[in-house]
């Protein structure tokens, strides 16, 4: 790795990587459907007018609603939110995908941007199935 701030861990496990499978789809179904619904301008307007009402309509849990109110993007994704769904909440609020990414990296967007490009130079044949070099 060229950049010491990029985790060298290649295991594809939290908090470095959040995989999304049918299991998360089932466990966080309402959260993701709520988020995806925000691509619709009417649902965006409803959410911006009254966040609680919009979230309650989708039967989100108290924990999920609190994380959305706190803009805890990492918590939402760790809790089964699909990143492509969760960013639609951010877009509705005028927040960029990159800012959601910076939150997962534990830094501000400006700090993250200053570190780009982030780069690995490993080829598939350089690691074993455990992700070790």
């Amino acid at each position: 790795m060229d950049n010491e701030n990029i985790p060298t861990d290649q295991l594809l496990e939290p908090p470095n990587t959040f995989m999304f499978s049918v299991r998360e789809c089932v466990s966080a179904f309402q959260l993701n459907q709520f988020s995806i619904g925000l691509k619709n301008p009417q649902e965006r307007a409803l959410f911006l007018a009254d966040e609680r009402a919009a979230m309650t309509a989708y039967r989100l849990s108290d924990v999920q609603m609190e994380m959305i109110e706190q803009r805890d993007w990492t918590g939402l994704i760790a809790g089964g939110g699909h990143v492509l769904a969760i960013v639609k909440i951010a877009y509705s609020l005028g927040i960029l995908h990159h800012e959601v990414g910076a939150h997962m990296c534990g830094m501000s967007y400006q700090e993250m941007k200053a570190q780009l490009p982030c780069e690995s130079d490993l080829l598939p044949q350089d690691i074993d199935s455990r992700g070790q070099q």
Partner: protein
Amino acid sequence: MGVVLGGMGIAHTPTMGHAYDGREGIDFKDRWKQWFKGLAPVKQWISEIAPTHIIVVYNDHLNYFDFSTYPTFAIGMSDHFPQADEGWGKRAYPGMDGDVDFSASVAESLVANGFDLTFCQELEIDHGIYSWLPCLIDHPWPVKFLPIAVNMVMQPVPTPARLLALGSALRSSVVDTADDSRVLIVATGGMSHQITGRRFGLTNPKFDQFFLSKITHEWDELISIPMSRIMQVAGTEAGELAMWYAMRGALSGSVREVYSFHIRPEITGCGVIAIEESNDK
């Protein structure tokens, strides 16, 4: 009887489209300009081979499909595919026209060959296609599109071998069509990038170049690599590169690489390759 003219693989990202439109607030503009300049020979090539139809194997990003029903393979079956609103409004481009007779013929052939796709009448197309399309073909697009959407958002996703087989079946389906369609097969996805976790922003230009160098003539070496291994070194969203195997599977052994180009503008490795069938000259 139709003919496959060639194939193209290309990366897609929402930012590519916004940068092309000159939207405010886009960083790394100079590197995006280099990418668009690097696409010019591909635009020229597509214009020269003049396809009547473009089959695009791509993935939706929760902009048309949602989790209530998520098809592993879906095929667009209408004469018009509108642009999807991804949450920031539509860009100033028209929808894409389809050819229902062509789509139906391809679908019949695919099902006969073991690919039972979901038929979509109202498919809306997101940046998976729209981010690069205006860079490569001037609108109104003088060609009919057949989009095939592949699940790349929820594990388990189709295997490399399955996507290669889809490509092979696509080739047969083109040959089986009744008209004289001249078809370009496009696959879009990747290249190196990751958009979750502390590895957000990870790219791997060395891997991207490796992939581009192998896909035309040594693709069998790529197919043998587990996608999980590619995701480990090049980021989880590099898994979308599996769709490029469908493009390669639709081509014969008698092909030549016309052109390839790669740059990493910001958080996604952007690569393109144009491969032409030599027996169609």
